[in-house]
Protein backbone atom coordinates (compact mmCIF):
# COMPACT_ATOMS: atom_id res chain seq x y z
CA UNK A 1 0.00 0.00 0.00
CA UNK A 2 1.43 3.33 -1.05
CA UNK A 3 1.29 6.41 1.11
CA UNK A 4 -1.97 8.24 0.90
CA UNK A 5 -2.12 10.53 -2.12
CA UNK A 6 -3.53 14.00 -1.66
CA UNK A 7 -6.42 15.10 -3.85
CA UNK A 8 -5.87 18.81 -4.50
CA UNK A 9 -8.87 20.86 -5.65
CA UNK A 10 -9.30 24.35 -7.09
CA UNK A 11 -11.11 27.11 -5.25
CA UNK A 12 -11.81 30.20 -7.33
CA UNK A 13 -14.39 31.48 -4.85
CA UNK A 14 -15.54 30.81 -1.33
CA UNK A 15 -18.57 28.74 -2.50
CA UNK A 16 -16.26 26.63 -4.68
CA UNK A 17 -13.88 26.18 -1.75
CA UNK A 18 -16.71 24.94 0.49
CA UNK A 19 -17.83 22.51 -2.19
CA UNK A 20 -14.29 21.21 -2.66
CA UNK A 21 -13.83 20.66 1.06
CA UNK A 22 -17.27 19.11 1.50
CA UNK A 23 -16.82 16.81 -1.51
CA UNK A 24 -13.70 15.21 -0.11
CA UNK A 25 -10.64 17.15 -1.25
CA UNK A 26 -7.57 16.61 0.92
CA UNK A 27 -6.26 20.05 0.03
CA UNK A 28 -7.54 23.13 -1.77
CA UNK A 29 -5.65 25.93 -3.51
CA UNK A 30 -6.72 29.51 -3.99
CA UNK A 31 -5.40 32.92 -5.01
CA UNK A 32 -5.77 36.55 -4.04
CA UNK A 33 -7.95 38.85 -6.12
CA UNK A 34 -5.12 40.42 -8.16
CA UNK A 35 -2.34 39.67 -10.63
CA UNK A 36 -0.34 37.62 -8.12
CA UNK A 37 -1.84 34.34 -9.32
CA UNK A 38 -2.27 32.62 -12.66
CA UNK A 39 -6.09 32.72 -12.66
CA UNK A 40 -6.53 36.47 -12.44
CA UNK A 41 -10.03 36.52 -13.94
CA UNK A 42 -12.81 39.03 -13.28
CA UNK A 43 -15.04 38.02 -10.37
CA UNK A 44 -12.72 35.29 -9.14
CA UNK A 45 -10.49 34.75 -6.14
CA UNK A 46 -10.29 36.00 -2.56
CA UNK A 47 -10.02 39.33 -0.80
CA UNK A 48 -8.66 39.68 2.74
CA UNK A 49 -11.86 38.65 4.50
CA UNK A 50 -12.78 35.70 2.32
CA UNK A 51 -9.17 34.46 2.36
CA UNK A 52 -9.26 34.37 6.13
CA UNK A 53 -12.66 32.65 6.08
CA UNK A 54 -11.30 30.14 3.57
CA UNK A 55 -8.38 29.16 5.77
CA UNK A 56 -10.67 28.81 8.79
CA UNK A 57 -13.22 26.72 6.88
CA UNK A 58 -10.64 24.39 5.37
CA UNK A 59 -8.80 23.84 8.63
CA UNK A 60 -11.98 23.30 10.63
CA UNK A 61 -12.80 20.45 8.25
CA UNK A 62 -9.34 18.92 8.30
CA UNK A 63 -8.47 20.06 4.81
CA UNK A 64 -5.14 21.63 3.86
CA UNK A 65 -5.17 24.97 2.11
CA UNK A 66 -2.49 26.37 -0.19
CA UNK A 67 -2.10 29.75 -1.79
CA UNK A 68 -1.05 30.16 -5.43
CA UNK A 69 1.25 33.16 -5.97
CA UNK A 70 2.46 31.86 -9.27
CA UNK A 71 3.01 34.80 -11.56
CA UNK A 72 6.27 36.67 -12.18
CA UNK A 73 6.48 40.05 -10.45
CA UNK A 74 8.16 42.93 -12.26
CA UNK A 75 10.05 45.69 -10.44
CA UNK A 76 7.25 48.29 -10.54
CA UNK A 77 4.87 46.04 -8.60
CA UNK A 78 7.33 43.81 -6.71
CA UNK A 79 6.03 44.87 -3.31
CA UNK A 80 2.48 43.67 -4.16
CA UNK A 81 3.86 40.16 -4.43
CA UNK A 82 6.04 40.27 -1.32
CA UNK A 83 3.08 41.66 0.63
CA UNK A 84 1.02 38.74 -0.67
CA UNK A 85 3.67 36.31 0.59
CA UNK A 86 3.60 37.97 4.02
CA UNK A 87 -0.20 37.93 4.10
CA UNK A 88 -0.27 34.26 3.23
CA UNK A 89 2.10 33.52 6.08
CA UNK A 90 -0.11 35.52 8.48
CA UNK A 91 -3.18 33.66 7.27
CA UNK A 92 -1.56 30.37 8.21
CA UNK A 93 -1.81 28.63 4.85
CA UNK A 94 -0.27 25.16 4.70
CA UNK A 95 1.85 25.93 1.66
CA UNK A 96 2.69 28.64 -0.83
CA UNK A 97 2.73 27.74 -4.51
CA UNK A 98 5.36 29.94 -6.19
CA UNK A 99 7.08 30.14 -9.58
CA UNK A 100 9.38 33.17 -9.55
CA UNK A 101 12.90 32.63 -8.22
CA UNK A 102 13.06 36.10 -6.68
CA UNK A 103 9.86 35.50 -4.79
CA UNK A 104 10.91 31.99 -3.75
CA UNK A 105 14.04 33.51 -2.25
CA UNK A 106 12.05 36.19 -0.46
CA UNK A 107 9.60 33.67 0.98
CA UNK A 108 12.37 31.34 2.10
CA UNK A 109 14.31 34.14 3.80
CA UNK A 110 11.37 35.92 5.44
CA UNK A 111 9.37 32.85 6.41
CA UNK A 112 11.84 30.01 6.95
CA UNK A 113 9.19 27.64 8.29
CA UNK A 114 6.71 28.14 5.48
CA UNK A 115 6.21 25.17 3.21
CA UNK A 116 7.01 26.08 -0.41
CA UNK A 117 5.77 24.31 -3.53
CA UNK A 118 7.08 25.02 -7.00
CA UNK A 119 4.17 25.94 -9.26
CA UNK A 120 3.65 24.33 -12.64
CA UNK A 121 4.49 27.83 -13.93
CA UNK A 122 8.05 27.23 -12.69
CA UNK A 123 8.57 24.83 -15.64
CA UNK A 124 10.62 22.22 -13.83
CA UNK A 125 10.58 19.26 -16.21
CA UNK A 126 13.60 17.27 -14.99
CA UNK A 127 15.02 16.00 -11.70
CA UNK A 128 17.97 18.36 -12.14
CA UNK A 129 15.74 21.41 -12.48
CA UNK A 130 13.88 20.25 -9.38
CA UNK A 131 17.20 19.82 -7.58
CA UNK A 132 17.99 23.46 -8.38
CA UNK A 133 14.81 24.67 -6.67
CA UNK A 134 15.32 22.31 -3.74
CA UNK A 135 18.95 23.38 -3.21
CA UNK A 136 18.20 27.09 -3.51
CA UNK A 137 14.85 27.39 -1.74
CA UNK A 138 14.19 24.08 0.06
CA UNK A 139 10.96 23.52 -1.86
CA UNK A 140 9.09 20.47 -0.61
CA UNK A 141 6.89 19.77 -3.60
CA UNK A 142 6.85 20.46 -7.32
CA UNK A 143 3.85 20.53 -9.63
CA UNK A 144 4.93 18.97 -12.92
CA UNK A 145 4.16 20.63 -16.26
CA UNK A 146 1.69 18.75 -18.43
CA UNK A 147 4.26 18.17 -21.17
CA UNK A 148 5.79 15.02 -19.69
CA UNK A 149 5.10 11.41 -20.63
CA UNK A 150 4.24 8.99 -17.83
CA UNK A 151 7.63 7.29 -18.10
CA UNK A 152 9.28 10.70 -17.72
CA UNK A 153 7.13 11.39 -14.64
CA UNK A 154 8.14 8.04 -13.14
CA UNK A 155 11.82 8.70 -13.78
CA UNK A 156 11.61 12.07 -12.05
CA UNK A 157 9.95 10.46 -9.02
CA UNK A 158 12.73 7.86 -8.86
CA UNK A 159 15.43 10.51 -8.97
CA UNK A 160 14.19 13.16 -6.56
CA UNK A 161 13.34 13.37 -2.89
CA UNK A 162 10.96 16.30 -3.51
CA UNK A 163 7.25 15.46 -3.46
CA UNK A 164 5.64 15.31 -6.90
CA UNK A 165 2.20 16.64 -7.74
CA UNK A 166 0.71 15.95 -11.17
CA UNK A 167 -2.41 17.21 -12.87
CA UNK A 168 -5.33 14.77 -12.85
CA UNK A 169 -8.17 16.59 -14.53
CA UNK A 170 -9.00 19.84 -16.28
CA UNK A 171 -8.10 22.10 -19.14
CA UNK A 172 -4.86 21.23 -20.80
CA UNK A 173 -1.96 23.53 -21.56
CA UNK A 174 -0.11 22.01 -24.48
CA UNK A 175 2.76 24.48 -24.04
CA UNK A 176 5.29 24.15 -21.24
CA UNK A 177 3.69 26.26 -18.54
CA UNK A 178 5.63 29.38 -17.65
CA UNK A 179 7.30 29.24 -21.07
CA UNK A 180 4.43 30.58 -23.16
CA UNK A 181 4.09 34.23 -24.20
CA UNK A 182 1.43 33.67 -26.88
CA UNK A 183 -1.19 35.54 -24.88
CA UNK A 184 0.93 38.67 -24.32
CA UNK A 185 1.97 38.59 -27.96
CA UNK A 186 -1.68 39.04 -28.93
CA UNK A 187 -3.23 40.88 -25.97
CA UNK A 188 -0.39 42.33 -23.90
CA UNK A 189 -1.24 40.08 -20.95
CA UNK A 190 0.24 36.64 -20.29
CA UNK A 191 0.06 34.08 -17.49
CA UNK A 192 3.58 35.08 -16.41
CA UNK A 193 3.01 38.83 -16.26
CA UNK A 194 -0.68 39.21 -15.43
CA UNK A 195 -1.99 35.78 -14.49
CA UNK A 196 -4.19 35.74 -17.56
CA UNK A 197 -4.24 33.75 -20.79
CA UNK A 198 -6.42 35.05 -23.63
CA UNK A 199 -8.16 37.50 -21.25
CA UNK A 200 -11.91 38.00 -21.59
CA UNK A 201 -11.58 41.74 -22.11
CA UNK A 202 -9.75 41.09 -25.40
CA UNK A 203 -12.41 38.69 -26.75
CA UNK A 204 -14.79 39.89 -29.46
CA UNK A 205 -17.66 37.84 -30.96
CA UNK A 206 -19.15 38.81 -34.33
CA UNK A 207 -21.96 37.34 -36.39
CA UNK A 208 -20.84 37.36 -40.03
CA UNK A 209 -22.18 35.85 -43.27
CA UNK A 210 -19.40 33.23 -42.96
CA UNK A 211 -20.43 32.27 -39.44
CA UNK A 212 -19.91 33.35 -35.88
CA UNK A 213 -16.39 34.71 -35.49
CA UNK A 214 -14.37 35.02 -32.35
CA UNK A 215 -11.37 37.32 -32.23
CA UNK A 216 -8.76 38.03 -29.63
CA UNK A 217 -7.63 41.65 -29.86
CA UNK A 218 -8.61 41.54 -33.53
CA UNK A 219 -6.95 38.21 -34.40
CA UNK A 220 -9.40 35.64 -35.76
CA UNK A 221 -9.14 32.62 -33.46
CA UNK A 222 -12.03 30.61 -34.90
CA UNK A 223 -15.26 30.76 -36.84
CA UNK A 224 -18.26 28.57 -36.08
CA UNK A 225 -21.15 27.50 -38.30
CA UNK A 226 -24.60 27.25 -36.76
CA UNK A 227 -24.79 24.03 -34.80
CA UNK A 228 -21.05 23.97 -34.03
CA UNK A 229 -20.39 24.43 -30.34
CA UNK A 230 -18.16 27.39 -29.63
CA UNK A 231 -15.69 27.22 -26.77
CA UNK A 232 -13.79 29.92 -24.95
CA UNK A 233 -11.21 31.31 -27.40
CA UNK A 234 -7.97 30.25 -25.75
CA UNK A 235 -5.71 31.24 -28.57
CA UNK A 236 -3.82 27.95 -28.89
CA UNK A 237 -7.12 26.08 -29.24
CA UNK A 238 -8.41 27.88 -32.32
CA UNK A 239 -8.47 26.65 -35.90
CA UNK A 240 -5.73 27.90 -38.18
CA UNK A 241 -4.32 27.22 -41.64
CA UNK A 242 -1.02 25.45 -42.08
CA UNK A 243 0.09 24.34 -45.55
CA UNK A 244 -3.38 25.30 -46.83
CA UNK A 245 -5.08 22.91 -44.44
CA UNK A 246 -7.46 24.20 -41.80
CA UNK A 247 -7.47 22.58 -38.39
CA UNK A 248 -6.49 22.70 -34.75
CA UNK A 249 -2.85 23.39 -35.57
CA UNK A 250 -1.77 23.49 -31.93
CA UNK A 251 -4.36 21.77 -29.76
CA UNK A 252 -7.98 20.62 -29.83
CA UNK A 253 -10.30 21.80 -27.09
CA UNK A 254 -10.13 18.81 -24.76
CA UNK A 255 -9.56 18.06 -21.08
CA UNK A 256 -6.92 16.05 -19.33
CA UNK A 257 -8.22 13.06 -17.35
CA UNK A 258 -6.01 10.47 -15.64
CA UNK A 259 -8.84 8.11 -14.62
CA UNK A 260 -7.44 5.41 -16.92
CA UNK A 261 -4.01 5.37 -15.28
CA UNK A 262 -4.81 6.12 -11.64
CA UNK A 263 -3.46 2.80 -10.29
CA UNK A 264 -0.19 3.34 -12.16
CA UNK A 265 0.01 6.87 -10.77
CA UNK A 266 -0.61 5.51 -7.27
CA UNK A 267 2.19 2.97 -7.71
CA UNK A 268 4.56 5.55 -9.22
CA UNK A 269 4.81 7.33 -5.89
CA UNK A 270 3.21 10.69 -6.68
CA UNK A 271 2.33 12.62 -3.54
CA UNK A 272 -0.65 14.51 -4.87
CA UNK A 273 -2.93 14.81 -7.86
CA UNK A 274 -4.39 18.13 -8.82
CA UNK A 275 -7.62 19.30 -10.40
CA UNK A 276 -7.36 22.36 -12.66
CA UNK A 277 -10.13 24.94 -12.75
CA UNK A 278 -10.22 27.84 -10.34
CA UNK A 279 -12.17 29.64 -13.08
CA UNK A 280 -14.92 26.97 -13.00
CA UNK A 281 -18.16 26.94 -11.02
CA UNK A 282 -18.83 25.45 -7.57
CA UNK A 283 -20.99 22.81 -9.31
CA UNK A 284 -18.03 21.80 -11.45
CA UNK A 285 -15.78 21.54 -8.41
CA UNK A 286 -18.36 19.40 -6.58
CA UNK A 287 -18.68 16.91 -9.41
CA UNK A 288 -15.02 16.60 -10.32
CA UNK A 289 -13.89 16.29 -6.70
CA UNK A 290 -16.59 13.69 -5.98
CA UNK A 291 -15.65 11.52 -8.94
CA UNK A 292 -11.92 11.76 -8.35
CA UNK A 293 -12.41 11.08 -4.63
CA UNK A 294 -14.18 7.82 -5.44
CA UNK A 295 -11.69 6.87 -8.11
CA UNK A 296 -8.62 7.70 -6.02
CA UNK A 297 -9.99 5.79 -3.03
CA UNK A 298 -10.65 2.78 -5.25
CA UNK A 299 -7.20 2.96 -6.82
CA UNK A 300 -5.48 3.27 -3.45
CA UNK A 301 -7.48 0.55 -1.71
CA UNK A 302 -6.97 -2.06 -4.37
CA UNK A 303 -5.02 -0.98 -7.45
CA UNK A 304 -5.23 -4.49 -8.95
CA UNK A 305 -9.00 -4.59 -9.20
CA UNK A 306 -9.45 -0.91 -10.05
CA UNK A 307 -11.83 -0.37 -12.96
CA UNK A 308 -12.89 2.97 -14.40
CA UNK A 309 -16.66 3.21 -13.93
CA UNK A 310 -18.72 4.40 -16.90
CA UNK A 311 -20.59 6.80 -14.64
CA UNK A 312 -17.33 8.56 -13.71
CA UNK A 313 -16.35 9.04 -17.33
CA UNK A 314 -19.79 10.29 -18.31
CA UNK A 315 -19.88 12.76 -15.44
CA UNK A 316 -16.42 14.12 -16.18
CA UNK A 317 -16.87 14.28 -19.97
CA UNK A 318 -19.93 16.46 -19.47
CA UNK A 319 -17.69 18.94 -17.66
CA UNK A 320 -14.71 18.62 -19.97
CA UNK A 321 -13.65 21.19 -22.50
CA UNK A 322 -14.91 20.02 -25.89
CA UNK A 323 -16.76 17.25 -23.97
CA UNK A 324 -13.83 14.89 -24.51
CA UNK A 325 -10.80 13.84 -22.52
CA UNK A 326 -7.25 12.76 -23.16
CA UNK A 327 -4.23 11.54 -21.24
CA UNK A 328 -2.23 14.22 -23.04
CA UNK A 329 1.52 13.75 -22.98
CA UNK A 330 1.21 11.11 -20.22
CA UNK A 331 0.13 8.62 -22.86
CA UNK A 332 3.15 9.14 -25.11
CA UNK A 333 6.01 6.71 -25.43
CA UNK A 334 8.65 9.40 -24.94
CA UNK A 335 11.48 8.28 -22.70
Amino acid at each position, binding site marked *: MSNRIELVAPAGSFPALRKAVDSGADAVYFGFRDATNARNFPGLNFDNTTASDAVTYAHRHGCKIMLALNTYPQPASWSNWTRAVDRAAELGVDALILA*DTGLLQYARQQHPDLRLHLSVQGSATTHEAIAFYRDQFAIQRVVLPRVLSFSQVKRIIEKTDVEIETFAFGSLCVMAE*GRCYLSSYVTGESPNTCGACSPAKSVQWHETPQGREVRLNGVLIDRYQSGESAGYPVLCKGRFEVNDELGYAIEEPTSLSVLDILPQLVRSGVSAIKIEGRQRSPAYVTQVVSVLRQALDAAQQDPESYRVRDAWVQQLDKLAEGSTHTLGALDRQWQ
Partner: protein
Amino acid sequence: MAMKLALGPLLYFWPRERVEAFYRQVADWPVDIVYLGETVCAKRRELRLDDWLRIARQLRDAGKEVVLSTLALIEAESELAGLRRIAQQDEFPVEANDMAAVQQLRGQHYIAGPHLNIYNPASLSLHHRLGATRWVMPVELSQQTLRQMQLNKPLQLETEVFVFGRLPLAFSARCFTARACNLPKDHCQLRCGEYPDGLDMKTRDREAFLIINGIQTQSATTCNLVRAIPALRELQIDVLRLSPQSQHMEEIVTLYHQVLENRLDPGEAENRINTLTCGSPSNGYWYDSPGMQWLEQPFKQGQGTRVE
Protein backbone atom coordinates in the same frame (compact mmCIF):
# COMPACT_ATOMS: atom_id res chain seq x y z
CA MET B 1 31.59 50.69 -23.17
CA ALA B 2 30.21 50.43 -26.66
CA MET B 3 27.25 48.17 -27.13
CA LYS B 4 28.11 44.83 -28.67
CA LEU B 5 26.19 42.93 -31.31
CA ALA B 6 25.42 39.27 -30.78
CA LEU B 7 24.11 36.74 -33.25
CA GLY B 8 21.62 34.58 -31.33
CA PRO B 9 21.50 30.79 -31.75
CA LEU B 10 20.10 29.51 -35.03
CA LEU B 11 16.53 28.50 -34.12
CA TYR B 12 15.73 26.59 -37.32
CA PHE B 13 16.85 23.21 -38.58
CA TRP B 14 19.10 23.72 -41.58
CA PRO B 15 21.20 21.08 -43.34
CA ARG B 16 24.71 20.71 -41.99
CA GLU B 17 26.38 22.19 -45.09
CA ARG B 18 24.16 25.23 -44.91
CA VAL B 19 24.92 25.76 -41.20
CA GLU B 20 28.66 25.48 -41.83
CA ALA B 21 28.50 27.86 -44.81
CA PHE B 22 26.42 30.29 -42.76
CA TYR B 23 28.94 30.48 -39.94
CA ARG B 24 31.86 30.76 -42.37
CA GLN B 25 30.20 33.97 -43.52
CA VAL B 26 29.45 35.09 -39.97
CA ALA B 27 33.19 35.10 -39.31
CA ASP B 28 33.40 38.20 -41.53
CA TRP B 29 30.31 39.99 -40.20
CA PRO B 30 30.47 42.89 -37.76
CA VAL B 31 29.13 40.91 -34.79
CA ASP B 32 31.09 40.61 -31.54
CA ILE B 33 29.41 37.57 -30.00
CA VAL B 34 28.04 34.40 -31.60
CA TYR B 35 25.75 31.98 -29.77
CA LEU B 36 25.97 28.45 -31.18
CA GLY B 37 24.07 25.22 -30.70
CA GLU B 38 20.62 23.68 -30.70
CA THR B 39 18.12 25.33 -28.37
CA VAL B 40 14.84 23.94 -29.73
CA CYS B 41 14.80 20.18 -30.32
CA ALA B 42 17.22 17.44 -29.26
CA LYS B 43 16.22 15.31 -32.25
CA ARG B 44 17.95 17.71 -34.59
CA ARG B 45 21.34 16.05 -34.85
CA GLU B 46 22.78 17.30 -38.12
CA LEU B 47 25.55 18.78 -36.01
CA ARG B 48 26.93 17.13 -32.89
CA LEU B 49 28.74 18.88 -30.08
CA ASP B 50 32.10 18.24 -31.77
CA ASP B 51 30.83 19.95 -34.92
CA TRP B 52 29.63 22.95 -32.95
CA LEU B 53 32.97 23.10 -31.14
CA ARG B 54 34.81 23.08 -34.45
CA ILE B 55 32.67 25.98 -35.72
CA ALA B 56 33.14 27.71 -32.37
CA ARG B 57 36.93 27.53 -32.68
CA GLN B 58 36.82 28.90 -36.22
CA LEU B 59 34.73 31.83 -35.05
CA ARG B 60 36.99 32.39 -32.06
CA ASP B 61 39.97 32.45 -34.38
CA ALA B 62 38.11 35.10 -36.38
CA GLY B 63 37.94 37.22 -33.24
CA LYS B 64 34.42 36.43 -32.09
CA GLU B 65 33.36 35.73 -28.52
CA VAL B 66 31.56 32.38 -28.75
CA VAL B 67 28.92 31.05 -26.36
CA LEU B 68 27.35 27.58 -26.48
CA SER B 69 23.57 27.74 -26.10
CA THR B 70 21.50 24.94 -24.62
CA LEU B 71 17.98 23.51 -24.93
CA ALA B 72 15.06 25.50 -23.53
CA LEU B 73 12.82 22.51 -22.80
CA ILE B 74 14.54 19.45 -21.36
CA GLU B 75 12.65 16.25 -20.63
CA ALA B 76 14.59 13.07 -21.43
CA GLU B 77 17.64 11.66 -19.65
CA SER B 78 19.47 11.72 -22.99
CA GLU B 79 18.85 15.45 -23.16
CA LEU B 80 20.27 15.92 -19.66
CA ALA B 81 23.31 13.91 -20.73
CA GLY B 82 23.78 16.11 -23.79
CA LEU B 83 23.49 19.17 -21.60
CA ARG B 84 26.11 17.77 -19.24
CA ARG B 85 28.60 17.35 -22.10
CA ILE B 86 28.18 21.03 -22.93
CA ALA B 87 28.37 22.10 -19.29
CA GLN B 88 31.54 20.09 -18.70
CA GLN B 89 33.58 21.44 -21.60
CA ASP B 90 35.69 24.35 -20.48
CA GLU B 91 36.61 25.97 -23.77
CA PHE B 92 33.55 28.20 -24.19
CA PRO B 93 31.02 29.81 -21.87
CA VAL B 94 27.50 28.37 -21.83
CA GLU B 95 24.08 29.98 -22.09
CA ALA B 96 21.61 28.29 -19.73
CA ASN B 97 18.02 28.22 -20.95
CA ASP B 98 16.59 25.91 -18.28
CA MET B 99 17.18 25.55 -14.55
CA ALA B 100 18.62 22.08 -15.17
CA ALA B 101 21.45 23.84 -16.99
CA VAL B 102 21.91 26.33 -14.15
CA GLN B 103 22.11 23.37 -11.77
CA GLN B 104 24.70 21.60 -13.91
CA LEU B 105 26.75 24.78 -14.30
CA ARG B 106 26.98 25.45 -10.57
CA GLY B 107 30.33 26.86 -9.61
CA GLN B 108 30.94 28.12 -13.14
CA HIS B 109 30.24 31.34 -14.96
CA TYR B 110 27.28 31.22 -17.32
CA ILE B 111 24.98 33.40 -19.39
CA ALA B 112 21.38 33.41 -18.15
CA GLY B 113 19.40 32.92 -21.37
CA PRO B 114 16.09 34.45 -22.43
CA HIS B 115 14.06 31.41 -21.35
CA LEU B 116 14.97 31.50 -17.63
CA ASN B 117 12.11 33.83 -16.70
CA ILE B 118 14.08 36.59 -15.01
CA TYR B 119 11.46 39.25 -14.30
CA ASN B 120 12.85 41.22 -11.34
CA PRO B 121 16.08 42.34 -9.66
CA ALA B 122 15.79 39.66 -6.95
CA SER B 123 15.95 36.93 -9.60
CA LEU B 124 18.77 38.78 -11.30
CA SER B 125 20.81 38.94 -8.10
CA LEU B 126 20.25 35.25 -7.49
CA HIS B 127 21.65 34.36 -10.91
CA HIS B 128 24.56 36.74 -10.43
CA ARG B 129 25.38 35.10 -7.12
CA LEU B 130 25.24 31.68 -8.80
CA GLY B 131 27.73 32.73 -11.48
CA ALA B 132 25.82 34.53 -14.24
CA THR B 133 27.95 37.12 -16.01
CA ARG B 134 25.24 38.24 -18.42
CA TRP B 135 21.46 37.89 -18.64
CA VAL B 136 19.12 38.08 -21.59
CA MET B 137 15.80 39.79 -20.95
CA PRO B 138 12.67 37.67 -21.63
CA VAL B 139 11.16 38.90 -24.90
CA GLU B 140 7.79 39.83 -23.39
CA LEU B 141 9.22 42.54 -21.11
CA SER B 142 9.12 46.26 -21.87
CA GLN B 143 11.63 49.11 -21.77
CA GLN B 144 10.04 50.31 -18.52
CA THR B 145 10.86 47.04 -16.79
CA LEU B 146 14.29 47.02 -18.40
CA ARG B 147 14.99 50.49 -17.01
CA GLN B 148 14.18 49.35 -13.48
CA MET B 149 16.23 46.21 -13.89
CA GLN B 150 19.19 48.30 -15.02
CA LEU B 151 18.86 50.58 -12.00
CA ASN B 152 18.85 47.65 -9.59
CA LYS B 153 21.14 45.06 -11.15
CA PRO B 154 24.53 43.98 -9.82
CA LEU B 155 27.18 46.24 -11.36
CA GLN B 156 29.27 43.65 -13.16
CA LEU B 157 26.33 41.79 -14.64
CA GLU B 158 25.88 42.47 -18.37
CA THR B 159 22.46 42.91 -19.94
CA GLU B 160 21.47 41.62 -23.37
CA VAL B 161 18.26 42.48 -25.21
CA PHE B 162 16.61 40.61 -28.09
CA VAL B 163 16.29 43.31 -30.75
CA PHE B 164 15.84 41.50 -34.02
CA GLY B 165 14.12 38.37 -35.31
CA ARG B 166 10.99 36.33 -35.04
CA LEU B 167 10.16 36.08 -31.35
CA PRO B 168 10.40 32.69 -29.67
CA LEU B 169 7.04 32.62 -27.85
CA ALA B 170 6.38 29.09 -26.59
CA PHE B 171 7.71 25.57 -26.22
CA SER B 172 5.72 22.36 -26.13
CA ALA B 173 6.35 18.65 -25.78
CA ARG B 174 4.36 18.32 -28.96
CA CYS B 175 5.94 18.91 -32.36
CA PHE B 176 3.59 21.12 -34.37
CA THR B 177 5.55 20.65 -37.59
CA ALA B 178 5.05 16.88 -37.33
CA ARG B 179 1.40 17.50 -36.46
CA ALA B 180 0.96 19.69 -39.56
CA CYS B 181 2.49 16.89 -41.65
CA ASN B 182 0.21 14.28 -40.00
CA LEU B 183 3.20 12.51 -38.50
CA PRO B 184 3.69 11.35 -34.90
CA LYS B 185 6.50 13.13 -33.06
CA ASP B 186 8.44 9.88 -32.69
CA HIS B 187 8.55 9.54 -36.46
CA CYS B 188 8.69 13.20 -37.39
CA GLN B 189 11.11 12.58 -40.30
CA LEU B 190 12.71 15.87 -39.22
CA ARG B 191 10.29 17.67 -41.46
CA CYS B 192 11.13 20.99 -39.79
CA GLY B 193 14.22 20.84 -42.00
CA GLU B 194 12.02 21.76 -44.96
CA TYR B 195 11.22 25.19 -43.55
CA PRO B 196 14.34 27.35 -43.22
CA ASP B 197 12.37 30.16 -41.55
CA GLY B 198 9.67 28.00 -39.95
CA LEU B 199 6.22 27.03 -41.18
CA ASP B 200 3.51 29.69 -41.52
CA MET B 201 0.37 29.35 -39.44
CA LYS B 202 -2.37 31.67 -40.69
CA THR B 203 -5.72 32.66 -39.27
CA ARG B 204 -8.92 31.64 -41.08
CA ASP B 205 -8.97 35.05 -42.77
CA ARG B 206 -5.47 34.25 -44.06
CA GLU B 207 -3.56 36.70 -41.96
CA ALA B 208 -0.02 35.71 -40.95
CA PHE B 209 -0.16 34.85 -37.24
CA LEU B 210 2.43 32.46 -35.85
CA ILE B 211 5.35 30.37 -37.08
CA ILE B 212 5.68 26.71 -36.29
CA ASN B 213 9.27 25.62 -35.69
CA GLY B 214 9.07 22.05 -34.40
CA ILE B 215 8.20 22.18 -30.70
CA GLN B 216 8.70 25.96 -30.69
CA THR B 217 6.09 28.55 -31.65
CA GLN B 218 7.35 31.90 -32.91
CA SER B 219 5.79 35.17 -33.93
CA ALA B 220 5.02 35.61 -37.62
CA THR B 221 6.17 39.18 -37.23
CA THR B 222 9.84 40.04 -37.00
CA CYS B 223 10.83 42.13 -34.01
CA ASN B 224 12.95 45.11 -35.01
CA LEU B 225 14.16 47.55 -32.35
CA VAL B 226 16.86 49.31 -34.36
CA ARG B 227 15.15 52.64 -33.80
CA ALA B 228 15.41 52.09 -30.05
CA ILE B 229 19.21 51.97 -30.14
CA PRO B 230 19.59 55.48 -28.65
CA ALA B 231 17.30 54.44 -25.78
CA LEU B 232 19.14 51.14 -25.35
CA ARG B 233 22.41 53.05 -25.23
CA GLU B 234 21.03 55.43 -22.64
CA LEU B 235 19.95 52.43 -20.57
CA GLN B 236 23.55 51.18 -20.77
CA ILE B 237 22.61 47.90 -22.37
CA ASP B 238 25.71 45.84 -23.09
CA VAL B 239 24.64 43.50 -25.88
CA LEU B 240 21.98 43.49 -28.63
CA ARG B 241 20.85 40.09 -29.88
CA LEU B 242 19.89 39.48 -33.50
CA SER B 243 18.22 36.18 -34.20
CA PRO B 244 19.16 34.65 -37.57
CA GLN B 245 16.79 34.37 -40.51
CA SER B 246 17.69 32.58 -43.73
CA GLN B 247 18.00 35.63 -46.00
CA HIS B 248 19.60 39.10 -45.81
CA MET B 249 21.17 38.49 -42.42
CA GLU B 250 24.49 40.06 -43.36
CA GLU B 251 22.77 43.24 -44.55
CA ILE B 252 20.68 43.41 -41.37
CA VAL B 253 23.70 42.92 -39.10
CA THR B 254 25.59 45.55 -41.08
CA LEU B 255 22.77 48.09 -40.77
CA TYR B 256 22.63 47.57 -36.99
CA HIS B 257 26.39 47.96 -36.86
CA GLN B 258 26.26 51.20 -38.81
CA VAL B 259 23.72 52.62 -36.39
CA LEU B 260 25.91 51.63 -33.45
CA GLU B 261 28.81 53.41 -35.08
CA ASN B 262 26.65 56.51 -35.63
CA ARG B 263 27.13 56.20 -39.36
CA LEU B 264 23.44 55.69 -40.10
CA ASP B 265 20.28 57.26 -38.73
CA PRO B 266 18.18 54.73 -36.73
CA GLY B 267 15.00 55.73 -38.56
CA GLU B 268 16.65 55.19 -41.93
CA ALA B 269 18.03 51.82 -40.76
CA GLU B 270 14.56 50.85 -39.57
CA ASN B 271 13.03 51.58 -42.96
CA ARG B 272 15.69 49.56 -44.73
CA ILE B 273 15.61 46.60 -42.34
CA ASN B 274 11.82 46.43 -42.49
CA THR B 275 12.08 45.63 -46.21
CA LEU B 276 14.37 42.68 -45.42
CA THR B 277 12.43 40.85 -42.70
CA CYS B 278 10.64 37.51 -43.10
CA GLY B 279 7.43 38.82 -41.60
CA SER B 280 6.01 42.28 -41.09
CA PRO B 281 7.84 44.18 -38.34
CA SER B 282 6.79 44.36 -34.68
CA ASN B 283 8.00 46.25 -31.63
CA GLY B 284 4.98 46.12 -29.29
CA TYR B 285 6.64 44.43 -26.33
CA TRP B 286 9.23 47.22 -26.11
CA TYR B 287 6.42 49.73 -25.62
CA ASP B 288 4.55 47.62 -23.05
CA SER B 289 1.95 46.67 -25.66
CA PRO B 290 0.92 43.43 -27.37
CA GLY B 291 4.06 41.97 -28.90
CA MET B 292 2.52 41.63 -32.36
CA GLN B 293 2.00 45.36 -32.77
CA TRP B 294 4.11 47.82 -34.71
CA LEU B 295 3.98 51.18 -33.02
CA GLU B 296 4.97 54.17 -35.10
CA GLN B 297 5.94 56.91 -32.77
CA PRO B 298 8.21 59.83 -32.42
CA PHE B 299 11.20 58.54 -30.54
CA LYS B 300 11.51 59.65 -26.93
CA GLN B 301 14.60 58.51 -25.15
CA GLY B 302 13.88 55.94 -22.51
CA GLN B 303 10.20 56.73 -22.27
CA GLY B 304 7.58 54.15 -22.86
CA THR B 305 4.65 56.32 -23.73
CA ARG B 306 2.09 53.98 -25.15
CA VAL B 307 0.81 55.06 -28.56
CA GLU B 308 -1.91 52.90 -30.08
